[in-house]
Structures are given as structure tokens and as C-alpha cells.
């Protein structure tokens, strides 16, 4: 047996201390297969060794949570015996190396996490962050990532209903591709991963195992350096067609009661999935690797255990149900193999060619998985920027036009046109609004889905930024009229071994935790992606939030488009003109300064609950939450979406006009109504500041007597940037 040298240990990403622990657990030197298994199980990606301590502090429970973090995805009750199952995951590193396949397999992976639990995926979302537009790699990456996401989701027949796309130089060498899937299941028909039943068969289904993606999990846990281009680790190629068959076959089998436990093979493939199933069920596993369906006959045990080939699942069946299950998978032309049995030894025993090629204790390995309390330093709080220190623009309309035509505000139709966002016939609100809304098939209910993050804020003040990301997701769901239920998160950060990065992480988590508690908007699933760095340059802290909410009557959902002329426009919430870290400051002044807007969560909650009540009462014809760009950008967005202008009264507030127009104070909404009197009365009743700021109508957006710009001029600035950028040589 090969001798494990310190170099081999190092290549496997294990520290000396960690390897000592390996020796202690094994009581002997591991063989290479066993070492490989330790290495992936203890990688940052699978073990959460740097983040565990902090993730435990998140708010994860509310009465409607059926299953919080710890399973393949989170589950919330949506009434009538139905549950929404959802999660977001990153595929940043593979997408940077091979944008099409990296992004495609990211989408494939997150969908598997959802249908593993018995849910039919009903919506995909994607949150993308690229480097600055003129970086030489950006366009190529955008093209590949978008095509890859589209190709996988479209082929699966799951609509991609929304997402985000931001450009910032901090992502030049490290893009973010975060994909989220939402599924729906009956609460009585949810499947978990725990294995149980001595002697019960362990079954492998789906694609064959090949030599692809070996060490994907460890790659995701290492930062890039200059020769990344040279290393070019193997990236997996996805086969969405096979995954569609795996989905249908699994759901067909799940309609029976043959399955005890089921788990997809994601990062670290066969290793991670069998360990998780066994350790959750407190059982042992004996597996015969000769029986694993393979693409190449000469694959080693090491390769079989570490391969990250896509479109594979493992499950434990009730004994005697194998043939029934096999028939279903064969109907769908998929591989089906009984590859092992559960045992009572608490060990994972691997056989090949009649010999034992690996024998590891399950619980000790899982329990001893490292957990670090990494040193961290809190980000120092920036000073508040006085609006008086921000010069007023000569022409606020020109500034508005510049902003909505800038890369981060420009319309992203170029992207969502490449995603089938209507398949499944339930997309009530298509991409472009605050939240996507999909009908729960065959019911009058709807799910509202959003992804949000403002890295500018998180970078300046991780704690306030962490609060804000959760609040913004909550606000987006509220803005369509839905009741916010829960979130998933995808925490994208730099190298956690650097105390300032760890400080950003801790700050964001603490802020998120506080927001989740006050808004009763718990975290039910998520993912951590560290080491998003190139040459020591970390990305901005980017804790992407995926939120969902429910509408009991989807027909009551409102959009952000002005829908009729001569309606009053009501601004809800308090306006102070906060310009620190605003989009205005960044886009127009080129400055990245000051404290981000503070988030008062109690006010956030009060204002949002009031708005949701007004929508539910049918008082509101359009609603838009205020975020990036403030009132003026929000008005422009409502006007462009509805192809209708508005006349805004010159504000009489004592706040500088540009601060009033572009300030990013939180907890605010714009609503239109035919019955503004009742809207104002409802707001007053709830103690929520509200005032009529203007009326819809005409084909221009005007403020007071002197500011005016046509909606069509705004639209062309807004719509042309992305297609022009992508088609320019």
C-alpha cells in the first residue's frame, strides 16, 4: 500500500493537525482512498469548518418551518398540506474556469437538492456577479454563464423566473454564480436523507460515474492564484436531459412508499452522500464498488469515491422493493444498481475485486470534523456622510438617465430572454419586478420569490449590510403582496484565514440574524463559499439572500408597473435623504463613502405589514419597494414598466432635492391607488408615515415645474445598455 507522505497530505488540503486527527481516528495510516475521503469530508465546502460556529447563531425557527438547515434544503409550510422546499448554492469557482458548464452544473446541482426531498422544482433563480464590464474576461463570462444556466433550466423544463446581475471590479478575478431552486411537495410526502434498517439495500441511480470533477470540493475551498489558467482542474459537464429523467423517475418512485432515505450526489459525490445518509441514520454501510455504474472500466476506488459526476442519486429502499424501483428507472432509461447494504457496524466499508479497499468509522469522522474559531477583526464603522457633502447635479433628469442606463441598473432582459421563464404554465409575474410570482399548480395560491444583496453596504458596514440584505428580500416579497416566510442564503466571502474577511463574515451573520428574528423571516437553508479571492484580493462581502413568501390568492398580487392614469402615488415610510454608499454617490460622483443607510427593523416590519395589508385590501394598483437609487429610480422603473409617466410635486421637506430623489432610506415603498385617502388613513392607523407625492399619467416623468424627461427616453437608456454591451466587439 502506498505510503502517505506529507506532500500527499498537503495536496489533499489537510493540515498537519488534521492529519494527526486522521491517524488517531483510523488507528493506522490511511490508504489513499481513505485519505481522499477525509480530505473531501473535511474540506471547507463539506465541513463548514470556518463557518459552523457562526451559522449556529442564525435564526432558524418559526412555527411554519418544517425543516431548517441540516438537510438538502429548507422546508416551510405553505398551507393546505403543501410545503415549499428551497435552497441556494454557489458555483463560483467552476463558473470562472468554464462558465457554461460551471454555471449549468450549478443549476443542475441545486435542482437535485430540491427533488431529493420529494418536491417538484417549480422555479429557479440566479444571482450573478461579474467583474467590471470593460474587464477583458467579463463579456465571455457573462455569455457563458447565462447560456449555461439557460441550457440546464430550459431543458429541465423548470422556469428561471428571476435573479440579479451586478458588475463590480471586486469580482474581476472571481465571479459569483449563485443558483436557487424552489420546489413544492405535499407535507405528507417529504423525503429525508437518513438511512435506516440493517441489511436494507443501498441503491445507486442516474448517470454513470466518470473521472470528472475529482476534487471539486477541495477546489471550491481554495483561492485562485496566477496560474489558475494553467491548472485547469477538471470541470464537470452536465447532462440536463438525464437529470430531467432522474427527476421524473425519482418522483415516480416517491409516489410509492419504497424509499427509506434518499440523497443526491453533489460535492464529493459518493463519499459525501453515503456518509451523510449513514451518519444521520446512525448505521454502517458496506459498498461494493464493482457494482457502481462506471464510464471507464479501470476506475480506481479513489476515483469512484471522489468523482463529482453529475446526475446521480443514492437511496436506501425497503427490502424487497428493488425490482419495483428498478422497473421505474429502467423505464426512464437510467442506470439502477444495488451497490451495498446497511450494516450495524457504524463503519463505511468499501470493497472492490473481492478485497476491502477502505474501512472508515462514520461517526468519529463526522464528529471530529474540524471546527475553527478563526480570529476576526470587526470592520470599523464608517462615518455618516452628510448630504451637504454631496454636490447636487446640474440636471437631476440627466443623472437619472445615466443611472438607469448604467450597468448595474440597466434592464437585464438580455439575460432572462435566454431563460425559459414561462414553462410549467404558472408564472404570474415574470422577471423584471420586485419578486417573481408563480402560482402553486392547481391552486389559487402563489409563491413570491426574490434574491437580493447589496455588497456596497456589506463592505462598508457588514452588520448594517447584513440586516439590510434580509430586510430588502423581505420588502421585495411584501411589495407584491405576499407574506414573507423564510430565506436561504449563499454567503460569498474571501479567505476566512484573514481576520478582516472573517470579521466581515461575522458582522454580516450577526446583522442577518437580527433581521431574521425581528422580521420573523428565518433561515432554513444555505451555503457558504469562502476563498473568493484572486491574488489576495477578496471580493466584496456578498451574502446573497433568497427569500420566499406566499399569497393565499395569487390573483391579488400586484406588480410595480403603473397601471392606470390619474392615480395617486403615495410614498410610504420616512425619507431623510441618506446618500452614504448610495448608488447615486457611486454612479454619478464615483465615490464609495460613508455609512450605509441604517435599517430600523421594527420600522421595517411596521411599514411592510401596513403595505401588505393595503394590497390585501385591494387598495393598491401598483407597488414598488425603494432600494438602490431611491425614489427617483423607483418612479422611473414604475413608469418604464407601465409605459406611463407621472407628475411628481416638488417636495417640500427641507431635504436637498437630490437627496430626496436619490437617497436610500430603508423601509420605504411607493404605491399607486385610486383611493389614496383610505391608503393614508390605513397608514396613519398603523403609525406609518405616508404622503401623496404625485399622480400617474402622460408619457413623461416630471418633478415640480422644471424637471421632466420622457418615458421613452428613459426606456431606451435602460433597455439598450445590456444588448449593446454584449454585441459590441
Amino acid at each position, binding site marked *: 500500500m502506498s505510503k502517505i507522505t506529507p506532500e500527499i497530505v498537503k495536496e489533499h488540503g489537510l493540515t498537519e493537525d488534521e492529519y494527526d486527527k486522521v491517524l488517531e481516528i483510523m488507528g493506522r495510516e490511511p490508504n489513499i482512498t481513505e485519505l481522499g475521503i477525509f480530505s473531501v469530508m473535511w474540506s471547507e465546502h463539506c465541513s463548514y469548518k470556518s463557518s459552523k460556529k457562526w451559522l449556529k447563531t442564525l435564526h432558524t425557527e418559526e412555527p411554519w418551518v418544517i425543516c431548517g438547515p441540516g438537510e438538502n434544503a429548507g422546508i416551510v409550510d405553505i398551507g393546505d398540506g403543501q410545503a415549499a422546499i428551497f435552497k441556494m448554492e454557489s458555483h463560483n469557482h467552476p463558473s470562472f474556469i468554464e462558465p457554461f458548464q460551471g454555471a449549468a452544473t450549478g443549476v443542475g446541482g441545486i435542482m437535485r437538492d430540491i427533488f431529493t426531498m420529494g418536491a417538484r422544482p417549480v422555479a429557479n433563480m440566479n444571482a450573478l456577479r461579474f467583474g467590471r464590464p470593460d474587464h477583458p474576461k467579463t463579456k465571455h463570462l457573462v455569455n457563458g454563464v447565462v447560456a449555461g444556466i439557460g441550457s440546464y433550466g*430550459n431543458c429541465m*423544463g423548470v422556469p428561471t423566473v428571476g435573479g440579479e446581475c451586478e458588475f463590480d471590479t471586486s469580482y474581476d478575478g472571481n465571479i459569483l454564480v449563485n443558483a436557487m431552486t424552489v420546489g413544492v411537495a405535499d407535507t405528507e410526502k417529504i423525503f429525508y436523507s437518513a438511512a435506516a434498517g440493517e441489511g436494507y439495500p443501498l441503491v445507486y441511480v442516474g448517470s454513470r460515474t466518470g473521472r470528472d470533477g475529482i476534487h471539486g470540493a477541495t477546489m471550491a475551498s481554495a483561492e485562485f492564484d496566477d496560474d489558475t489558467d494553467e491548472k485547469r482542474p477538471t470541470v464537470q459537464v452536465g447532462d440536463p*436531459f438525464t437529470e430531467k429523467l432522474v427527476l421524473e423517475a425519482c418522483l415516480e418512485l416517491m409516489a410509492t412508499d419504497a424509499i427509506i432515505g434518499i440523497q443526491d450526489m453533489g460535492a464529493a459525490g459518493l463519499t459525501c452522500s453515503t456518509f451523510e445518509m449513514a451518519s444521520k441514520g446512525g448505521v454502517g454501510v458496506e459498498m461494493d464498488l464493482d457494482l457502481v455504474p462506471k464510464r471507464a472500466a479501470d476506475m480506481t476506488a479513489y476515483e469512484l469515491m471522489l468523482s463529482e459526476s453529475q446526475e446521480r442519486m443514492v437511496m436506501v429502499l425497503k427490502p424487497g422493493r428493488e425490482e419495483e424501483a428498478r422497473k421505474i428507472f429502467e423505464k426512464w432509461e437510467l442506470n439502477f444498481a444495488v451497490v451495498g447494504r446497511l450494516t450495524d457496524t457504524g463503519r463505511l466499508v468499501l470493497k472492490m475485486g473481492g478485497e476491502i479497499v477502505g474501512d472508515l468509522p462514520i461517526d468519529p469522522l463526522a464528529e471530529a470534523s474540524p471546527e475553527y474559531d478563526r480570529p476576526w477583526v470587526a470592520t470599523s464603522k464608517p462615518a455618516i456622510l452628510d448630504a451637504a457633502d454631496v454636490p447636487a447635479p446640474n440636471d437631476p433628469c440627466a443623472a437619472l438617465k445615466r443611472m438607469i442606463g448604467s450597468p448595474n441598473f440597466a434592464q437585464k432582459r438580455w439575460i432572462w430572454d435566454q431563460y425559459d421563464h*414561462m*414553462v410549467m*404554465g404558472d408564472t*404570474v409575474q415574470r422577471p423584471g419586478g420586485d419578486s417573481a410570482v408563480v402560482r402553486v399548480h392547481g391552486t389559487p395560491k402563489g409563491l413570491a420569490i426574490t434574491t437580493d444583496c447589496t455588497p456596497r453596504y456589506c463592505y462598508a458596514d457588514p452588520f448594517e449590510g447584513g440586516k439590510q440584505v434580509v430586510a430588502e428580500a423581505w420588502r421585495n416579497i411584501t411589495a407584491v403582496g405576499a407574506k414573507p416566510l423564510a430565506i436561504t442564503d449563499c454567503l460569498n466571502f474571501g479567505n476566512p484565514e484573514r481576520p478582516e474577511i472573517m470579521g466581515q463574515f461575522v458582522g454580516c451573520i450577526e446583522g442577518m440574524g437580527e433581521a431574521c428574528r425581528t422580521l420573523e423571516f428565518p433561515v432554513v437553508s444555505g451555503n457558504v463559499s469562502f476563498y473568493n479571492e484572486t491574488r489576495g484580493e477578496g471580493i466584496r462581502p456578498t451574502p446573497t439572500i433568497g427569500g420566499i413568501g406566499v399569497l393565499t390568492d395569487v390573483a391579488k398580487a400586484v406588480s410595480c408597473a403603473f397601471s392606470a392614469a390619474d392615480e395617486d402615488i403615495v410614498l410610504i415610510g420616512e425619507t431623510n435623504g441618506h446618500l452614504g454608499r448610495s448608488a447615486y454617490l457611486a454612479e454619478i460622483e464615483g465615490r464609495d463613502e460613508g455609512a450605509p443607510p441604517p435599517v430600523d427593523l421594527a420600522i421595517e416590519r411596521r411599514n411592510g405589514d401596513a403595505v401588505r395589508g393595503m394590497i390585501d385590501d385591494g387598495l393598491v394598483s401598483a407597488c414598488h419597494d425603494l432600494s438602490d437609487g431611491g425614489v427617483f429610480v423607483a418612479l422611473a422603473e414604475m413608469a418604464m414598466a407601465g409605459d406611463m409617466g407621472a407628475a411628481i410635486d416638488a417636495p417640500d421637506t427641507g431635504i436637498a432635492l437630490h437627496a430626496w430623489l436619490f437617497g436610500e432610506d430603508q423601509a420605504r415603498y411607493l404605491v399607486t391607488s385610486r383611493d389614496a385617502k383610505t391608503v393614508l388613513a390605513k397608514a396613519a392607523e398603523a403609525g406609518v408615515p405616508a404622503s401623496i407625492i404625485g399622480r400617474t399619467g402622460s408619457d413623461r416623468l416630471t418633478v415640480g415645474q422644471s424637471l421632466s424627461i420622457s418615458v421613452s427616453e428613459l426606456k431606451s437608456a435602460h433597455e439598450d445598455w445590456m444588448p449593446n454591451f454584449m454585441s459590441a466587439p
Partner: protein
Amino acid sequence: MKAAVIVFPGSNCDRDVQVSIEQSTGKPCAMIWHKETELPELDLIVIPGGFSYGDYLRSGAIAAHSPIMREVKARTDSGVAVLGICNGFHVLTETQLLPGILMRNAGLKFICRDVDLRVETTSSVFTQNYAKDQVIRIPIAHNDGNYFTDPDTLKMLEDEDRVAFRYCDAQGGINEAGNPNGSMSSIAGILNRRRNILGMMPHPERLADQLLGGIDGRPMFDGLVEALVA
């Protein structure tokens, strides 16, 4: 009207079109697995959209050889109506029940959005509930919708009034701006000579419910029910 939807591995608009048909008929619409070799008594067969066999070789090419297609051909000969939507249109051209082929979109990208279509003929069970030259709004969602055929076939299609829909601009004008995928002569859907087979790239089932943003697809299904009352 008795209708059935054929399901290939990779079909994914099968349920969507089933919903639309059931909405118009008020009766269950059967789903038929492609490996079946026999069909029940039927008035309408739908070949739905999606990615049969992943569309890895050519869209629809592999599905065209599925066992059920022999039976579908036999039924069309006896006059049963067949509607192929999107990937279903691919399957119909690959089986040569309809002429021509659908190539990659001229822009080489998948396109999902509402487009305007001009109704070119009302003399078929599929289009009888529209008016000639009516402009309707129906979504497309495809990678390969770029209709191509030889000039003689094109002339024949036109001479025989077999173009069912053309892509157009909002005013009904046939021009490049209104043509999303480069289709020859802006063709979005065609009929066979007997006029009982329609292949079309746009998805009428996607706008047959007001909640989803429009109902211009609805007259097709309602019209089929009226024409095919059994």
C-alpha cells in the same frame, strides 16, 4: 373531443398543454408514453414542447424514431388532427409529416418572450376561431426555430395556403424586426396538405389564461373542441 399528449423523454410542456386542453374541453386529456405502440380512439394528438432526448443531435431527430410515431403517422392518414408545438414541430419535420427543418436561431441564442403572430389562414381546425390577418400575441421559447426549406417547397406552402402563422410586428407587418429567429419568410407555423397537421414554434398553451398575461392562445383550443366534437 378526445385528445392525447405524447410524452417523450425530455418533453416538458406536456403538462402545460394538457392543462389548456382540459380547460377548453372540460374533459381529461390522456398522456401517452412514447414507447406505446397503440393509441386509443382520438380526435386530437398533441406533440408537446420540450427537449426530447435533450435535442443533442438535432431537435426532434431521435424522438421521430420513437415507436409511437408510426402510430401517429397512421392516424394522420385517417384524418386525426395533430398539433406539434415547438419541439413537437421539430418532431413533425423530422418524421417528414411536415416539410422543411428548424435550424438554430439566427442570433444563436435561446429566446423566450412574447411575439406577435399574424394569422395567415383560417381554413384549418386549428385556426378557424381566429380572423385572417389577425395579430395575436403568443410566447416563443426555443433555440432552434429558424424555419428553412427549399424555394420550391416554400412556393408550394404559399400556393396551397399552408402557412398558418407568420411572425410580425405589432401592426401585423412582416419584416425583419418582427422576425425573432431568422425564419424563412417569417414562417412560425405550417399545415400539411390535408390540413390536419399543424406544426408551430410559438406556444399557444402559454397564453390561454388571463392570470398569465393573455388569452390569445385560447381560441386555438376552443376552436379544436368545436371542430372536433365527437
